[in-house]
């Protein structure tokens, strides 16, 4: 049994006004077509499953186009569909129908809606159909999503793992100021390379690499120095090794193995790093290689100025670096001087006593 939710994923689809404007401009809703491609692939998997769909353009039409029988869940009020529809129907599919996999089509905004509705423990997978996809909760293509849905339908052993959900302020995006924030984590199939970004060959390999990075960083921690720990699962392993709690989407500070500040704001960070020696530990967020300025805006330019480039520790598994496809790591702190100071080559911690010489560009 697999469920399907969807919504028309147009550029800037947050808000009815934007949707109408986009349609007037001649934009073509592509979520529907992409969902059809997913379902066609799912159909060829020759597995027994029940398909649940949201009404009309949110899945029902795609199922019909793919020639699949489906049961409609929920209803929508008007001719257009809204984020509220996505949230309500997704909740029903997970909590009432207990689907084995919730597929949703769209971009980062849809992923954030789904996260808000079903939380981080329900099995979901994004069909890439939005204009901007920074989140890791999406399959690399509709066909890949169909393959994974087929595996779930067949009852194959599919592992699930946390994947970053980044949302971006679409008004800022339309103004050309991209500023996504880390919203949380969705639970998606961990099939390597069918899900963005490129993952480790296996969960075990990923876990070992993350542990090895944590071991290296913890071994190098100096007494009395405050360590600002950025968001993300790679950084969380450091807190895990120290035995302190970690705010997954926030920034925490540890000193001498103890938690000093949890979920710190930029001002709180500035106070801590100004009080004594400090270092910052961050991992690139999302598939674009941003080290600062995406998902960790709390570690702002003032904080970085005080800490100094030599005490910025960038950590990443080799697979995360490989997922950049040769693109550099990037910084966008909001202060061009700090960005310039941070750019150049950096020794990224990729394992225990493992480094990658990798360049950072503005």
């Amino acid at each position: 049994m697999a469920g399907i939710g969807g919504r028309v994923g147009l550029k800037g689809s947050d808000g009815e006004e934007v949707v109408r404007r986009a349609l007037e401009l001649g934009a073509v809703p592509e979520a529907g077509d992409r969902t059809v491609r997913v379902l066609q692939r799912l159909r060829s998997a020759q597995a027994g499953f029940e398909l649940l769909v949201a009404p009309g353009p949110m899945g029902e039409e795609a199922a019909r186009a793919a020639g699949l029988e489906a049961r409609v869940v929920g209803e929508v009020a008007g001719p257009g569909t809204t984020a509220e529809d996505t949230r309500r129907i997704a909740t029903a599919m997970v909590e009432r129908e207990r689907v084995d996999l919730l597929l949703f089509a769209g971009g980062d905004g849809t992923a954030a809606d789904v996260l808000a509705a079903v939380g981080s423990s329900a099995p979901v997978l994004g069909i890439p159909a939005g204009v901007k996809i920074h989140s890791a909760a999406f399959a690399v293509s509709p066909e890949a999503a169909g393959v994974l849905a087929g595996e779930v339908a067949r009852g194959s052993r599919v592992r699930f793992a946390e994947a970053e959900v980044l949302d971006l302020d679409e008004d800022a995006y339309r103004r050309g100021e991209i500023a996504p924030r880390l919203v949380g984590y969705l639970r998606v199939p961990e099939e390597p390379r069918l899900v963005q970004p490129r993952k480790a060959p296996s969960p075990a390999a990923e876990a070992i690499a993350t542990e090895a990075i944590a071991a290296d960083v913890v071994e190098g921690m100096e007494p009395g120095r405050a360590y600002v720990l950025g968001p993300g699962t790679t950084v969380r392993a450091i807190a895990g090794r120290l035995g302190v709690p970690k705010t997954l989407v926030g920034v925490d500070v540890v000193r001498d193995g103890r938690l000093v500040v949890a979920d710190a704001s930029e001002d709180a960070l500035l106070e801590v790093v100004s009080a004594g020696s400090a270092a910052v530990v961050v991992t690139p967020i999302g598939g674009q290689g941003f080290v600062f300025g995406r998902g960790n805006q709390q570690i702002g330019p003032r904080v970085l100025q005080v800490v100094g480039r030599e005490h910025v520790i960038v950590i990443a598994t080799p697979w995360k670096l490989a997922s950049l496809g040769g693109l550099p790591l990037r910084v966008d702190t909001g202060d061009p001087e700090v960005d310039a100071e941070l750019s150049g080559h950096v020794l990224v911690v990729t394992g225990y006593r493992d480094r990658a010489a990798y360049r950072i560009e503005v």
Partner: protein
Amino acid sequence: MTEGTWPIGPKPPLRRFHQARWDEPVIFELSQPGARGVLPPAVEPEIREAVGDPVAALPRSVRRERPPALPELAQLHVVRHYARLSQENLGVDLNVDVGQGTCTMKYSPKVNDQLASDPKVADLHPLQDPSTTQGVLEVMWRLEQMLKAISGLDRVTLQPGAGSAAIYTNVSMIRAYHASRSEGARDQVITTIFSHPSNAACAKTAGYEVITLYPDADGYPDLGALRAAVSERTAALLITNPEDTGIFNPRIDDFVRVVHEAGGLCAYDQANANGILGITRAKEAGFDLCHFNLHKTFSTPHACGGPAAGACAVTEELAPFLPVPTVERDDDGRFFLDHERPMSIGKVRPWYGVVPNIVRAYAWITSLGAEGLREVAETAVLNNNYLMHKVLEIAGVSAPYAEGRRRIEQVRYSWEELSRETGVRSEDLGLRAADFGTHYWTSHHPWVVPEPMTLEPTESYSKADLDEYAAILAHVAEEARTDPELVRTAPHASTVHRADHEPLDDPERWAVTWRAYRRKAGLGG
């Protein structure tokens, strides 16, 4: 049946293959308590009396408390077991084995096997007095002279038992060199992501911190990154060229210079020198050390982690650190083993090297001569570029980096486009190829090249072989579009259809011995 139809007529365009499937258990599971392969006759009373209890002569510390936990089988059952396993296999003597890129799966001429199994070689014992082993010492000495000429360096050791052992030997010599100059604080080794990962692994095993360079937009290792990485902590650069992409780094001398200026040494991974034999040498690029895999470049069998063979070459400056013993020739032309080398790193393996493979490599080089070696490289490069031309005609595959330029001896292709289009992954395509009697390997991890496929045709294969291989790839890629589930569930005619690789990444679950398997699977010790 009409003329021209299978099986009477010519074979179909694509050869079909069906592997043997014996459901063969692990040999330990075949064990029958008390079964024996050979029952030696009882010792005669007179002999027993004269010798006494032979076990009593052994010190207590080396005596077993219990017999070893070996499987107990009749000889026939042992032979049958391994004969069955040998059928559940592919290999260079069975298929067009160009899909194992970076491994250089060239043909091993059978005449060299005959020489290696000749009793004059096979019956030698390493404890024989050198006066009785002049022939094999001469072969070793002569092979060393040949490898000196091929690398341009000054001394060679044939002791390492495999490629990684050779890299480890080089790293050990690098460590000893720096220690001898009171520079033991150099604790970092630099390598590249497209160099063989054994370079990073061996440096790590020897205690070094490893810095890996990623490629720039052209696919060359990033020279700027190297400049940022070198320091007073740099012990060495370990690098392959051409890298696993098949792209030759034209700035290799700059890399060597930057590392030398920082006080580090440079070791050239020439495990696979197949595309550059007789064309370029470690010496001319300024390297201090290099190594060869005799089982890649010089045609000896790979032996799957068993008796392969490695050789390390070094400059005069590093020669004092070579493993002992070295093979020397005195003024009378007599060969001897020199154990008295006080700065040596010691031994990296018992005895003197894998003699059967040393004999095979020597025979192979001798049969070709200097011109022949160069022709090997030229043919390997020609074969590779012909195959690349054929492969790139297939829709959905590409050769990332250095677009429009040719490759040396291998190519790391990408099926990313086909994979996005169909949801079929590179691994699936390689496994589907097994239904046509061949296969391919993707790449080491991490997959910097997405959905990779690494092909290396070597000089061994004919144009018809390469055409057959390219036709199989084209057919399988087409199937990914028309019947993706067929490809995703392949192979359909192999002994094992799909293996779960994940335990290989998990120290809690991997097992390389039966005992480890039983312990980790909770089956008892």
